[in-house]
């Protein structure tokens, strides 16, 4: 006990001398009072009025444009509180204290006055923050903007907010790799460390304003903050992950997809899959690619798949039909408006190529180019996105072999194309050769389409693609 007291005394003396360097005598009185305050038992926090500090250029009033916090939120020192605007200048007001927001003195778009209270913050008294705050600028080097932490004799740089996050998660700062300036440990570094520990994929870090700005001066040796708690050295305890679930409403396009997919699943689907040997088509496309390029069109495999599908639909028009809601009537659609599933930032959208039955492969390729560039720019129109009668989904460009595609109402069939793989196959002579194999997975509405029809359509489509020359016979 004796030794302990001596140590704490010397600790106090150390801090006192530090304060003498930094504050003037009046501030010293406060710190003295602070210590007395700390030793007595305090149960409730004190409410501090955080006043709007000087903006500069003689400005006395500003407009509150955005609150980053609301009443009841807890804030750390340097967290952003609000954004105010004055005459073309946008100012981020940050908190001077750790605590809980108890009152916002202004609503949005109200005028706030320099020197008047902006928010009330309830401060945990044991943290020993001086209740009197500066209305004018903070004195230079008053609050140390960061603290050195000596762990195993190795100085680690981190802001108080970052240290708190580490402590909450039982992380040793010495084990975290800092990516900030001078290997400073940032909030992101703690989160990355946690992700590696738990194997979790973390959501992107919160907006820049919320993250406390990095400490600037790195060579000021500041005394460690006089807090009772230290970073505990974890035994072999599992890391506590303090990430929170994020719930958001399903809106807009996604809400529409929920409706569509729910309706789609009411359709009794049956699946039919097969393997296509595209060796000849691959070669044909290689020959035709430069020809199309000269005409300004990028030629992929899709135009061939689409045209072959249309030729097949001519023989099996039931696959290009629509069943009415009461299942009383089947409408055979005259136009082959073949939809192409497209993956965009928003999600899955399906523009369609109109009247494939009267288009050449080149025309289809050209139209696909147009739809693709509009799709990636987010500028597809209603005409491009409606009126589809049959859909192909080239999921193979992302990956995968077999799929179980979902029919898009009011259509009755859909095909999913896997990726093209080079695989060994036997030819007619029993020899092994290199084949370009792609898998196709069809789904069809079993209320009006039977397995045999789907199989025959698939075989016809397959034969056109395996022997592209045969397409010539049936082209109109």
């Amino acid at each position, binding site marked *: 006990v004796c030794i302990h007291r001596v140590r704490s005394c010397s600790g106090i003396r150390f801090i006192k001398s530090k304060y003498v360097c930094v504050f003037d005598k009046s501030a010293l009185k406060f710190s003295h009072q602070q210590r007395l305050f700390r030793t007595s038992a305090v149960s409730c926090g004190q409410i501090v009025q955080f006043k709007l500090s000087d903006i500069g250029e003689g400005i006395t009033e500003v407009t509150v*444009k955005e609150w980053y916090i609301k009443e009841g939120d807890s804030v750390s020192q340097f967290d952003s509180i609000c954004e105010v605007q004055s005459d073309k*200048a946008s100012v981020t007001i940050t908190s001077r204290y750790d605590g809980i927001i108890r009152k916002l003195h202004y609503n949005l778009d109200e005028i706030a006055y320099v020197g008047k209270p902006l928010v009330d913050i309830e401060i945990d008294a044991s943290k020993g923050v001086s209740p009197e705050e500066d209305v004018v600028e903070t004195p230079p080097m008053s609050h140390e903007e960061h603290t050195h932490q000596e762990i195993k004799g190795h100085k680690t740089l981190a802001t108080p907010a970052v240290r708190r996050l580490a402590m909450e998660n039982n992380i040793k700062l010495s084990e975290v790799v800092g990516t900030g300036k001078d290997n400073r440990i940032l909030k992101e570094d703690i989160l990355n460390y946690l992700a590696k520990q738990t194997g979790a994929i973390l959501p992107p870090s919160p907006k820049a304003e919320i993250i406390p700005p990095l400490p600037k001066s790195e060579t000021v040796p500041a005394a460690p903050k006089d807090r009772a708690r230290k970073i505990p050295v974890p035994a072999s305890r599992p890391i506590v992950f303090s990430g929170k679930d994020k719930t958001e409403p399903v809106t807009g396009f996604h809400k529409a*997809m929920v409706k569509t997919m729910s309706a789609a699943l009411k359709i009794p689907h049956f699946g039919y899959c097969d393997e296509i040997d595209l060796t000849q088509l691959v070669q044909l496309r290689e020959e035709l690619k430069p020809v199309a390029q000269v005409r300004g069109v990028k030629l992929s495999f899709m135009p061939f798949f689409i045209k072959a599908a249309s030729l097949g639909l001519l023989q099996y028009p039931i696959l290009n039909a629509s069943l009415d809601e009461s299942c009383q009537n089947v409408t055979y659609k005259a136009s082959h408006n073949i939809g192409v599933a497209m993956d965009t930032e928003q999600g899955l959208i399906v523009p369609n190529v109109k009247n494939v039955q009267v288009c050449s492969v080149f025309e289809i390729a050209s139209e696909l180019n147009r739809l693709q560039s509009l799709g990636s720019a987010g500028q597809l129109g209603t005409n491009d996105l409606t009126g589809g009668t049959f859909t192909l989904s080239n999921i193979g460009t992302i990956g995968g072999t077999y799929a179980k595609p979902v029919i898009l109402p009011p259509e009755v069939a859909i095909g999913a194309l896997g990726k093209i793989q080079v695989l060994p196959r036997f030819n007619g002579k029993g020899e092994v050769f290199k084949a370009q194999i792609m898998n196709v997975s069809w789904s069809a509405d079993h209320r009006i389409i039977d397995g045999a029809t789907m199989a025959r359509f698939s075989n016809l489509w397959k034969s056109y693609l395996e022997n592209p020359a045969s397409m010539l016979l049936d082209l109109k």
Partner: protein
Amino acid sequence: MVLQSSLKNCLHLSCILRTPKAGFRSTTSGSLIIQSISNDVYQNLAVEDWIHDHMNLENRQVLFLWRNSPAVVIGRHQNPWQECNLRLLRQKNIKLARRRSGGGTVYHDLGNINLTFFTCRKKYERMENLKLVVKALKALCPQLDVHVTDRYDILLDRHYKISGTAAKLGRTNAYHHCTLLCNADKFVLSSALKSPYKGLKSNATPSVPASVKNLFEEDPSLTCEMLLDAIAEEYATQHQIDHHITLIDPADETVLPGINNKTKELQTWEWVYGKTPKFSVSTCFNMVYKDSVLDIKVDMDVKHGRIEVCNIDLPEQWLPPALSSELVKSLTGSKFCPNETTTLATTLLRVCPQDEELQNRWNVLCENMVTLM
């Protein structure tokens, strides 16, 4: 004279040298002039954020020079629908960015130069910066009649605005940036900054329109490079540093760690559109359908860029009530965005009655709604 050198070296230098260079007594010694090699508005705005958040500006200041390929830049608290012709921007592939500083909307292209003066918060002083620019301009071109107004604009011939200003203040740092029209496309500028959207009501900061002129029109020999050089030279003189411009690459993570995340954030829909202060749209439009013209009244409240409340007044029975209420319900909560509305409406059509007439009406209505966005 522009010498290429790595910013990384300069930053490291700042850590080592705690005392001013021998011979310099000014407190602003160690100041830096940097220029971006990129013309991407998002990358360049990200550099501003990075310097503001990460650099120690207590004993030095930084001048950042940058130019952008065609873009419209709105202020932090502005409403893009009020400020510019979004349809035209999309058509002409002109980017839209929201900066973090306040102020009004500007049009950038390669004929416009941007200057950012970084200081610590205490040394934030816009007038001085603008006077520096005017001094540089007069040194380059003595007959120019340019002066700074008390609204922090720079006017040419007492009448034409050639520069607009905005600023951002943080806890320890601050920056003041301004544009300077050298040889920008005035035609695209005026059409891009003219909003066609009617019936908007909001508390967003409005822009103050002004007649503009290019410096090039006064003196055809002027180029952006000359202006940048003249301003850099004046800055170097006033800050007593070498006239040495450091080039930086805003995509280089080794020099600017974390910069790519900042760039990405500036491009998100949530930042560009979602940060728009709450506003309402109250308008009527004439919808042409087959041989008739119908009067449609629309009322919407938009918050965080999303439709909070939606009301569409259609002629009775033009669409079955179930359908029109389905449309309104789906639009509520959805982004106030043409692409979102189009994909939402066309997807919903799949589960609507497959009546051609009905579907045509639905499509026409949705296309008209999209024109409001």
